[in-house]
Structure formats: C-alpha cells, structure tokens
C-alpha cells in the first residue's frame, strides 16, 4: 500500500496546479460562476484535455492515458483546490467509470475517445428529486418503441448536465445513453454557485439501451469510484483552506500581534492540520485501493466519504471563522469553499448513509 505520491505524480500535480494558477485564478471562477449562460469554462476544459488529464482512466487503446485512480485523484485535488468550473467530475469520473464498468464495447468506443480528447462531455443521471443514489431507476421509465427505447420521467442532481453531449441514465434499473440535446434541462438552484446541477426531463426521449449483466453492480461501482474522486476534490479544498488560513493568521494583526500567535487561532489551525493530514492518508489509501485491491474498495470508499465529507466542511467552516468578518464577505473566497464543502458532503448521500455503508462493508 502506497500512501505517498511518486515523482511522476508530483510532476502531474505541479503541471495541473500551474495551469490552474495561470488560467483559473479566483477571479476566473467568479466570472464563470456569474455567467449562467456559460456555467463551465470550456477553454480551461480544452487546456486540461491538451494536458492529457481528461482521459486518465480511459484505456490507452481508447485514446486515454490508461492511468489509475491515484493519478486522477492528483488532478481532482488540484481542481478542488481551485474550484475549477469544468465538468471533470461528470465526464472524467462518473461517465468514464460508468462507461468502463458497463463493459459494452460499442458504448466505450463511442464515448471514451471523445471524453479523453475533451471533445465531448458526458453526464450521468442516477437520482430522482429526492437525491438518493440510484433512485432514478424508479423515476425514469424506459419503454421499447420498435427498435429503439424511449425514456420518460425525471432525474435530478445531474452534475453539469446541460453542458453534456451525452447522458448516461440509470432508468428502469438499467443503463441507457441519450443525446444531451434531446433532454429537457431545468437548471437547479444550488448551494454551491461553482457546481452546476440540473433536472433532466425525459418525454419519450429516444435512448440507446446499454446491455449489462449487472446494472445495479455498475451503479454501485460508479458510486465507490465517485466517493474516492470526490474525496480528492474535498482534500484539495481542505488544503487550500488550511494554507489560506495559516497565511492570514500570520499577517492579520489584532491586539498588537498576529492572530496566529493567539492560541485560540493557533490551536484551531493545528486541529485543521491534523484533520487534513489524516484525511490525506485516507484519500490516498482509497485511491490506491481502487487501483490495486478492488475487493477492499467498498470499505475504503465509504471510509473516504465518512472521513472527508464532514472533515472538509468543518475545515471550510473553521477556516472561514478564523478569518473573522472578512471571511463572511462575498468578496472573500472562504464562502466558496464552505458552500462547495457542504455540497460535497451531501452529494453522494448523507454522512449517516455513508456511516451505514461503512458499517455494511465492515459487516457490523
């Protein structure tokens, strides 16, 4: 088990970080955030594709890098730290993992090269209006219509849905792929202004059925990989919040000395650091497990969300608190991490559900 990055992975992190520093500073995030027409940063997406990171898990034969979860988590941590407005979670994680897990050659040949090249993005719709993972199985119905299939119903919480060229839908307990343009999208209001979600309405929408022996197994596999990937984003956010907070504590003076010299601030920073360090160990363990020990992934993935979900929110909240009034302003970035962290904490289910998953994995 390897819990530290190797030289190549550190170079990967450096190059993504450098790209984001140049092309995705906070000001850019805010521009995209304010522009409901854009919603994502297509230029940045192209740049990430050129860097070769949009298809990390795509097999080399399909034009991808054939790399592993650890590498992808390296990228996700940087994207999470920068709050980069790109459909990475949707396309390079959820859709990629689903397409691979489904094991259907036609689907894979259709989607994976495009995803890897950054030419197309793909979203995944698995939840109904209540948000439970897989509940779209009942809220979206599939019916055969001659040689085609048609979907009817509604799915919600579709991350970056309206920008997607294709959508993989878990409908009627099976997997289908539809054209993004054929879906009627209703953008949701979101707590996190940097993470777009939408409802997808299907009204006899033409769909292609993806043959699959164990659709529920694919659903579960996608959840586990998403839990690890999201944890990487969460870790990136935690690290950024910690760094910003420590930096601020060094320069902000109150009562004649830097606030970081006050134990109330110093010890809180130490707790943030302790939380980050443990979260990081859990993350790399989960990513390593996804790559090398699939049998242990149910446990490692649930553990990642049990730990990282609340830890990332507590870190964001504490970091904001330690900034005092300035942290509460719209102009300061602290609130963006706060909203992202709360969103991520609930995106794949509640902390109680994650604990229950972990307990299942442990056979408690």
């Amino acid at each position: 088990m390897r819990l530290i990055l190797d030289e190549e992975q550190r170079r990967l992190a450096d190059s993504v970080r450098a790209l984001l520093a140049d092309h995705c500073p906070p000001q850019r995030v805010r521009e995209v955030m304010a522009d409901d027409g854009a919603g994502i940063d297509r230029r940045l997406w192209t740049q990430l594709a050129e860097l070769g990171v949009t298809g990390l898990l795509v097999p080399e034969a399909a034009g991808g890098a054939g790399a592993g979860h650890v590498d992808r988590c390296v990228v996700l941590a940087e994207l999470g730290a920068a709050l980069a407005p790109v459909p990475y979670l949707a396309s390079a994680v959820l859709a990629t993992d689903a397409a691979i897990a489904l094991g259907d050659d036609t689907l894979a040949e259709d989607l994976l090269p495009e995803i890897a090249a950054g030419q197309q993005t793909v979203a995944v719709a698995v939840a109904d209006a209540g948000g439970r993972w897989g509940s779209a199985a009942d809220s979206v119905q599939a019916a055969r219509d001659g040689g085609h299939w048609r979907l009817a119903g509604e799915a919600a919480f579709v991350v970056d849905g309206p920008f997607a060229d294709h959508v993989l839908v878990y409908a009627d307990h099976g997997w289908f792929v539809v054209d993004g343009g054929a879906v009627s999208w209703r953008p949701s209001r979101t707590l996190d202004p940097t993470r777009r979600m939408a409802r997808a309405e299907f009204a006899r929408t033409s769909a292609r059925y993806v043959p699959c022996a164990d659709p529920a197994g694919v659903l579960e596999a996608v959840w586990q990989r998403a839990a690890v990937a999201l944890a990487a984003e969460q870790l990136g956010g935690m690290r950024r919040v910690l760094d910003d907070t420590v930096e601020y504590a060094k320069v902000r003076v109150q009562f004649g000395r830097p606030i970081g010299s006050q134990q109330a601030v110093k010890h809180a920073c130490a707790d943030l650091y302790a939380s980050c360090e443990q979260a990081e160990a859990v993350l790399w363990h989960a990513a390593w497990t996804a790559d090398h020990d699939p049998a242990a992934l149910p446990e490692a993935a649930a553990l990642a969300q049990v730990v990282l979900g609340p830890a990332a929110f507590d870190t964001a909240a504490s970091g904001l608190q330690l900034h005092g009034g300035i942290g509460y302003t719209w102009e300061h970035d602290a609130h963006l991490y706060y909203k992202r962290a709360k969103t991520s904490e609930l995106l794949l289910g509640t902390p109680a559900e994650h604990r229950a998953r972990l307990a299942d994995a442990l056979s408690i």
Partner: protein
Amino acid sequence: MAETSKAGPSMTGQQGTGHSGTGQRGTAFRERVRGWLAEHAPGGDDHVPEASESAPTEQQLAAAKRFQAALFDAGLAGLTWPAEYGGQGLTAAELQIFQEEAAAYDLPTGVFLISMGMCGPTLVDLGTHEQKVRYLPPLLRGEEIWCQLFSEPGAGSDVASLQTRAVRDGSGDWVVTGQKVWTSGAQYADFGALLARTNPDEAKHRGLTMFVVDMHAPGVTVRPLRDMTGSAPFNEVYFDDVRIPADAVIGEVDAGWAAAVTMLGHERVSIGGSVRRRYDPMTFDSLRDEARARGVAGDPVVRGELAELYAAERKLALLNARLRQQSDAGLAPGARGSVAKLAGAQVLWQAVRVAGLVVGPRAIAWEPGDPSGDALALAINATPASSIAGGTNQIQRGIIGDRVLGLPKEPQVDRDVPFRELRVGTQAR
C-alpha cells in the same frame, strides 16, 4: 408550564419560555399590548429583515416608520426611556412583556433595532440634555434612523485599533477621514454613532471619541457590502473630510472607549432579547416537520439527532429565561450574556449538521420555484455570522474568562504603546 401554555412564544424556540411580570400591573399591561398588537401588527409583507438578510425596500422602510409612529402614538415606544424625552418611563418588566407578546408576530422593527437597542440607550446614558431633546423624540416617532460606526477593515475583534481620524480645526469643528465597515442600515440611516481616533499619541484605548454624525453630510459615502449569502445588509462607509460640530461629541473627548463599552453593553442585551422570526428553517420545529414530511422522522439516527437539537435549543432558551429572572431579581447579566451568544451560535451549527441528515441532497440543489430550498440555503449560508458577528466566539470566550471567571489577562503587548507606533490590521510592517 401548564400555566403558560395558553399563548405566547414557542416553547421550543431559542426565545424565552414562560412569562414574566405576573403581577396585576403586569397583567394589565400585557392585555393592553396583546390587544394593540392584535389590531395593529401588520402582515408578513411589511416584515423588515435584520442583518444577514437582504436590505429593505423603500415600501418596507416606509411601513416600518409608520409602524414605529403608531407604536409611539399608542404609548408603546421607548418603554424604558425617560418620559422627559418621549419615552414611557417603565421598567424592564414591561419591556419583557412587550417582547414576549411581540414574539408571536413578525413586526417590521428590524430597521430600528440599532437605533432603539444601542444608539438611543447610549444617548440616554451619556448624551447632553440638548442631544436628548434633539435626537430621542424623532427616533421614537420613527422619523429618524441611526446606525453604528465602530468596525473597520483593520479593526474587527480589536475595535480599539481603529484608524479613522477626527482632527479639530481652527473653528472648533472636527474633520473626519477614514473607513468603516459592517455598518447595518447605513444606506437609510439619518445619523450614526461614530467612533474615531482623536489622539494617536495616546495608547489605543485612549484617544478615541464618539460623535453624532449626520449621514447626509458632504463627504459621507455609503457602499453596500455583499456578504456570503449574496445579499447586502451591511455597508462600507467612507468619510472624506466630513465636518462635525463640536457639540456632536457623545460623552467626553478622548473618552470614546468608555462610550463604546456602554453601547456594546446595550448590544449584548439587545442581541439576547431580540425578536425571532416566526419561520426559520434551522430550528428543531422546522427540521422535525421536514423529517416528518420526508418520512425520516422514525429513523433512529435522525430521531436522536433531532432530540439533541431540541435539547440544545431548550437549554439555551432556559438559560436565557434564567438570565432574565436573575436580572429581574437585581443581578444584571453583564458579561454572562456572552454565554447566550456562544450557545446560540453552537445551536445553529448543530442545526446545520442535522439539516444535512434530515434534508439530504435537497439541501444542496432545488427547484427554482421552491422557497424552502432558498430559505434553507440562506440559513446555511448565514450560519457563520452567528459565531463571527457581534464578537467572534473566540472573543466571547475571552470575555467570559476575563470578566465572569476572573482569569488573569493575557500579556498585552499593545496596552501602553502610542497608537501611531502600533501594528494594526494587515497593513505593511
């Protein structure tokens, strides 16, 4: 509690439990307040939000002024203020009764909170006769609104490190230059209670003076300040050579810190006794209803978390009720009010956690037309204010440690240093 179950505030909210003033005079007063409110309390559209919600509209502002005028005409404004200056000369007991009865309504009194809760009482305490005659009656009649001008970008928790300067010119007038921040209501306030540095050669707590400043005077610029909820209930206020006459000093020149402490003392009481909104998604009542509506109230984990949230709200409500009873018995809460502030923030943070368990993913994305989604998001986003605004949790713990428990002070490196030699804020060294 059977005797209090007929009417009055929610027994589960953070607000009071049970009623005070059960004497005959109290009963009569309560009847009068209840009757008047039943007749005059306006509907929800007139609701004027407090800080951390959006700024009031022109119509809301006008309605609020009309309501305050009606209160005044009914003899229900300035209950504890001297009759000589338009008040009613009553006691804290009547004020308490009024607040208890008012808690059942969504009264449009938000814009007057600072005027009535902080600036007015400070003028009552420290103002000259002329100042009281000039400012108090129009305030009670709802004609003029006040704001408070203490905080600065470089002086948050450490208010006394403020840098706004007031310099006396040849005519005896003062000329003010500087920037204030976090000013609620500055965009519609007529006057402000301004704290400025009048002597930078003194140590930071000395050499400050409090002034009445006309917010319509030349050189005063008000800019809205958006908070993390996206709304702008606060402002930045810039002073650019603003002239203030000599008789606008509140208290004594260079004794502004004492005046500020007086005003902040009123703030704590005001926060503890403020009227709560009727609907708040971040309460036990709301979250229990949510849990029932979503069918998760029977989940043992949710059930336990809801019970813990109830317990947290209830212990705070009982603490507040006990503080009031002690106050009625002659033991002023003083710095112990910080406990209520601290506990209030903890309850909200706990509620945010419980809300996640109860509401689940719907707390993070919802339909554009769903007001409960907006309300919940606003509440989640406003929660950090509870542990920052009005003194951070860290500051409150220091107050309790120093003033209530009598623990020794920290080494104070800035106590006796002339202000102009001191590092403040994040300025270059």
